[in-house]
């Protein structure tokens, strides 16, 4: 089925159609031996991972460990100078590095991305409605009225009033901007949501509400999620399984709670201990104890 046929078929019933039927046998994402080199520096080294249907998987690592590079490699957003090896299969489609059109056909439809800094990611010249509508415009042939209805419903689901539809990103708070980012990622009901440190730019209270919103939307949609963070507290709230990445390699995987309590690799222990120390230092109850 070519892209136009697929668009036509899906436009007939978007409630169902916004759930792309590309994946086979519950496998959402399959990555094998993924390696990435940029300017002779290896940023990812033999990364292998799988994400199944309705799984919420965390990816944690220190700054510069390769978390964001992995997201970019999976979604075809790497710089042009990057040299990529290995296999990526998404929704049953085996993706060749450099096949931008194939990646673009899946991005925004099969896989939705939530960015770290929505203030920088949202297009400053598009209104909230235009921004959220963009994946629909790019992937589905819907009339303007139907697109608007879908956007309004989505805004309501992410907790934004319809009155904000005509606002521009600079007129919104950080939390509202991230809700727009989440609405944009979810508008086509993708099978996989990749959230790249989506709460780093937000304060603690907003962080929690955004994570809860993201998890509840992903759960209610039955989608899978790859959640990238360097914060174990956030990880335990958002995911059930997690992987630890260090210097471009996946060094440990397992159940999130188990990994938090019994980290096996030294680097994982360092991350967990650092998180615990930070929590103890900032928690006044622990100080009094």
């Amino acid at each position, binding site marked *: 089925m070519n892209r136009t046929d697929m668009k036509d078929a899906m436009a007939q019933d978007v409630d169902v159609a916004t759930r792309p039927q590309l994946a086979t046998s519950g496998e959402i994402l399959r990555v094998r031996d993924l390696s990435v080199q940029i300017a002779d520096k290896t940023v990812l080294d033999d990364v292998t991972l799988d994400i199944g249907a309705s799984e919420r998987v965390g990816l944690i690592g220190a700054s510069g460990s390769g978390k964001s590079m992995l997201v970019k490699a999976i*979604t*075809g*957003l790497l*710089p*042009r100078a990057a040299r990529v090896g290995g296999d990526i299969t998404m929704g049953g489609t085996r993706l060749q590095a450099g096949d*931008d*059109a194939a990646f*673009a*056909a899946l*991005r*925004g*439809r099969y896989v*939705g*991305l939530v*960015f770290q*800094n929505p203030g*920088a*990611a*949202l*297009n*400053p*010249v598009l209104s909230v409605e235009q921004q959220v509508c*963009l*994946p629909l415009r*790019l*992937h589905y042939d819907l009339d303007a009225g139907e697109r608007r209805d879908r956007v309004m419903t989505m805004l309501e689901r992410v907790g*934004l*009033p319809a*009155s*904000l539809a005509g*606002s*521009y990103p*600079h*007129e*919104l*708070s*950080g*939390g*509202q901007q991230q809700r727009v*980012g989440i609405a*944009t*990622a979810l508008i086509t009901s993708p099978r996989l949501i990749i959230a790249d440190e989506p709460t780093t730019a*937000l304060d603690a*209270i*907003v962080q929690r*509400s955004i994570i809860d919103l993201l998890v509840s939307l992903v759960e209610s949609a039955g989608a899978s999620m790859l959640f990238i963070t360097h914060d174990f507290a956030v990880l335990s709230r958002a995911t059930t399984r997690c992987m630890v990445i260090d210097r471009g390699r996946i060094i440990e995987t397992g159940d999130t709670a188990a990994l938090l309590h019994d980290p096996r690799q030294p680097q994982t222990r360092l991350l967990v201990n650092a998180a615990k120390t930070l929590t103890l230092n900032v928690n006044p109850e622990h100080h009094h104890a």
Partner: protein
Amino acid sequence: MRYLIWRLIWFAVALLGLSLLVFAALRILPGDVASVMAGTNATPARVAAIRSRMGLDRSYPQQYADWLGGLLHGNMGVSAISGRTVASQIGSHAAITLPLIVLSLLVALSIGIPMGCQAALAGSPRVRSVLHTIAIVGGAVPALWGGLLLIMLFGRGVGLIGILPSQGFPDAGWHAPRAALISLILPAITTGLVAGAGIMRYTRACLISMEDSDTVAMAMACGMTRRQAMLRVGLRLSAAQLVSVAGLTFAQMITGVMVVESLFNLPGLGAMLINDVGNRDLIAVQSELFLLAAFFLLLGLLVDLMHHALDPRLGERTQHVGGEEHA
């Protein structure tokens, strides 16, 4: 709307300041214009008569008020040399220079932007490198040399492929539109190619700076290919900068085109200004300088207004709407 009104008020204030500056500058300059015009052997009576005819015997405030009042009514006085009204003199020369500049800018934009995009987005690094070199070399070519080369290639009667006129403007002016337009092709290409190389470099730099931006990544995440995202989002977000560059290029052409006008023997504004300054035609030079500077101010105003139209962040609504997230 409030910004527009505010900006127009400032534009009017700037014009007033500009008129004062031009008026004062020409009065401060050494030398008596009436004596120069009368010639070395003129009698004091003749000099006084010329001074009286030009209104130079009146007080400075009176002279300024007369000139400003005339400007407001479109009356810029009469040239002491040619005897023609300054307005008609400027009009006839501007009828050559302004179309030439517009044509040059069209050439520059139609070459610079597409080639700049290609220099940033071409799949092959070698193609990108070649295009970048073309932009650098193109920008370094002096207009005079480039124009000569074009005349030697395409100038009717002298060129290898002599198909275009390379000297003068038709006597009938724009009453013979085809001939007039054709006579401006080689000068417009000369100016446009050099300016186009600059616009090409800016376009390339703007796009390259956008390539790794989160906004372009977000557009790609929504389903655009890299090329689509760069052209539809990157170029759109660079539009404000490109408008500034186009505005500056346009302004520079007003004076920069004088060399080209001279090379192609076109009686444009440049030739007029050089003539009038040489003849110490105070009345004409005063209005010409004012109009030239006012044109620069007008370009600045238009560029500012276009920035506001292109970027909602510059609009009046800047406060967060809908309250804070915590609420």
